[in-house]
């Protein structure tokens, strides 16, 4: 009897496996017939191109069109197309969790639970199954050690308010970047709007993307980055540029960047295949190793020279709050920084 039971179990497991791989094969076939997937993404251009190529090498014949722009621009594109009735976007991915609350509310997302996300932490998953955190990064302070020694360098968000940094800092823009949108919300919750009002007195150089401060600091155009995507600072540093990253003790804004499939995706199967692929260990490990990102995948390991998330005090943002305060944050920021 026991034998019979285990026999049945084996049979059923095998057939389950067979069914599942048959489903996979069917999906791959369908995806190949569709031939491509249009990916509107805010992941840094070199990183998103690398991920797309990894996918294209695995699934020959399916092209990933990478349309990279800032989070807020990605949302603008998606909404403008929706309002004109254009169906072009397949998968959208930004660093502003609020966007996905909005898109879900407007009925623009397809419900799809990617394979393998069960083990991801809660902050990476939408309860109703519409969007999932593809990657995470931090917003940090950075400085150019050739200009500012490690001893002098600012160690905390509050130190950036010191007038000695006047004219020496760069900030990215919440009207462009989801990472900075999340950053501003986190620090406003920590210190109130007065923090940014005071910071603006230090005459910051205003760039758009959260990736741009890395280049600005590395070239020495400004000595200190008052914020910016940690993964891009890290990548730029690894390429041999003079950059030091500081993880402030007061707390580091954690930015989880979701991905979702559009409800009217013109290539639904390719979108699902691509989304599944994004959450495989292979892809997530690549993002960690090559691009310096954090992920929600429990099995992924990180470079030794990066701090573990559990060792940092993290400031997490609530997507619903991000969505609610989006307009206010953009408006206030422009008011303080001029543009």
């Amino acid at each position, binding site marked *: 009897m026991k034998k019979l039971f285990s026999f049945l179990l084996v049979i059923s497991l095998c057939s389950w496996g067979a069914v599942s791989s048959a489903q996979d094969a069917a999906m791959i076939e369908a995806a190949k017939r569709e031939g491509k997937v*249009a990916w*509107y993404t805010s992941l*840094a*251009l*070199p990183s998103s*191109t690398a991920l*797309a*190529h990894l996918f294209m090498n695995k699934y020959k014949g399916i*092209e*990933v*069109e*990478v*349309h*990279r*722009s*800032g989070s*807020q*621009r990605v*949302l*603008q*594109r998606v*909404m*403008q*197309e929706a*309002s*004109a*009735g*254009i169906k*072009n*976007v397949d998968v959208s991915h930004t660093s502003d969790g609020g966007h996905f609350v909005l898109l879900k509310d407007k009925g623009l997302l397809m419900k799809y639970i990617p394979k393998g996300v069960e083990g991801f932490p809660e902050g990476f998953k939408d309860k109703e199954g519409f969007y999932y955190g593809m990657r995470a990064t931090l917003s940090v302070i950075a400085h150019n050690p050739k200009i500012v020694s490690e001893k002098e360098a600012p160690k905390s968000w509050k130190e950036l308010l010191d007038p000695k940094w006047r004219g020496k800092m760069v900030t990215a823009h919440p*009207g*462009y970047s989801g990472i900075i949108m999340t950053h501003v919300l986190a620090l406003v919750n920590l210190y109130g709007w007065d923090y940014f009002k005071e910071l603006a007195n230090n005459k910051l*150089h*205003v*760039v*758009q*993307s959260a*990736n*741009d401060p*890395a*280049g*600005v600091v*590395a*070239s*020495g*155009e*400004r*000595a200190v980055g008052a914020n910016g995507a940690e993964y891009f600072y890290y990548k730029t540093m690894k*390429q041999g*540029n003079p950059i030091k990253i500081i993880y402030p003790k007061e707390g580091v804004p954690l930015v989880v960047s979701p991905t979702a499939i559009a409800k009217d995706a013109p290539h639904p199967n390719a979108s699902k295949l691509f989304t599944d692929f994004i959450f495989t260990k292979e892809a997530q490990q690549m993002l960690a190793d090559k691009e310096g990102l954090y992920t929600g995948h429990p099995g992924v390991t990180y470079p030794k020279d990066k701090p573990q998330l559990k060792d940092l005090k993290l400031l997490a943002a609530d997507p619903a709050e991000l969505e609610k305060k989006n*307009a206010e944050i953009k408006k206030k920021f*422009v*008011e303080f*920084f*001029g*543009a």
Partner: protein
Amino acid sequence: MRFSGVEAVGRLRAGSWRGFKALDPTLPVWVGAALFLVFLMVLPLGWIFVASLKGEEGFTLTGYSQVFTESAFLKAIWNTLIISFWVGVIAVLIGSLLGWLVTRTDLPCKKMVRALVMASFVTPPFLGAFAWTLLAGPNAGLLNKLYRSLTGSEEALFNIFTMEGLIFVMALYSFPYVFSMIANVCELISSDLEDAANILGASKLRVALTVTLPLTAPALVGGFILAFLHSLSLFGAPAILGLPAGLHTITTQIWALFQYPPRLDLAAAFSVPLLVATMLLIALQKKILGRRGYSTVGGKGGQRRLVQLGIFRLPVFALVLGIIALSVFLPYWILLKAALAKAWAQPLTWDNFTLENFKFAFFQYGDTQAAILNTFKLGILTATVGTVVAALIAYITNRQLLWGARYLTFFALAPLVVPGIVLAVGLFLAYARPPFVLYGTIWILFIAYLTKEMPIGFSQAETTFKSIHPELEDAGRILGANRLGVLRDVTAPLARAGLIATWCFIFIGVIRELSASILLFTPKSKVVSVVIFDLKEEGQIGVIAVLGILLLLVSFLVILAVQWAARGEILATRE
């Protein structure tokens, strides 16, 4: 229906509506071209006015009141006026100096100077602005670094991310407009008056200031207005240099209003003052140029003697090269360096050398391939259709083929007063909703470019037809060909060189267009200028440099090809 030859010619020349209607089976072509033109202009502009007045329910003026009371908007208007004013002044100084030098003095290498001014003209201002961020960023900018290492100073020589910096860069790419106006006028002024002053004992400087200058005054004012208008409508340069310093202009503000959640009503309301300002300025320019005329200038009768620069010849030449260095040599050099370097701010040593940027731009980043394809498709398409339409319209107005032909001139030139970004607002309103959904395709860009380039195409074509006497056509008509046949077989071949030049102007205008494209593209219909702007926002310096060089190379190749193709004819028509 038979006429004697003389009668037919007489009727054709007079081109009266009635006579024409009875005669010509090709009428639909002319009427069609005219209606197409009117449609092209009226739809977007009409939409702007409607949208600017539209509230949640019914019509309202709240859009306007918000635009004219909120301090951020007022600041943007004020910034724009200040910037454009100074750009106009500096462009007139540089443009008239250079224009006078190459036409009326014995400056060496004039042909080369002209070609280099042409190069400044062809360089997209957003690309120049980008190059100047690398040259004169206050800390990493290479010129500032050089200055520090030479003087030991701590301070920067020049911060490009300021209003002064923005004015400086915009003036560098606006002066060619003044240059061409002044050069044209100076070529026509005869030396008689200057000689008279000379004989009466005035010094060269005095002659230049008291005789030549007043003679060219209308052109100077006209040039100022042209440069002012040009800088009013620029988007890329203010976005690249102004925004980092917290400076908004009208164009960047309109662009910002398109971001989510879009405020199309405000964008439309904000477009109207820009539109009105340009209209007033154009009217003013017309009035000034029209009233003063060039009564002493007219004709090529008098002799034109060149002013001898004497011992100043070489210093002046060095000055000219210095100016050109700012608009062409230095920016091109830094673009090349950035394209080939791993770290643009470091010296270009073997260790720092890479072809990765080229590889990434052309082979890895899918967007660029699609964008390059779109750009050239649009360039060729717009230039071809634009040349045909401009030629038809110019032909109608020049030969007075239709009643109201004069008003067609107005419509063909109307886009002059419509800054690219305002046109884009109108086109977005007109074509991003049923029944005409062109948004999302390259066709909305095609319409934008066609509209925007129409004035240049039209004026080119018009000049061309003016130089071709109707008697050849009359001969063709008498021999039984219809209007279109004559146009195809007689006039077009004669006008070939001029039409090729028209094509070339439109093509170059299209491939560098940013201010309208930035509101009208979708990820599916990107063009190179938009990709460059996107990359700029992310700080992908090497890849931008590669694409910038590509744009410049193609522009120069087109110019060279056209000069080569039209060589014979251009010489022939000159003589």
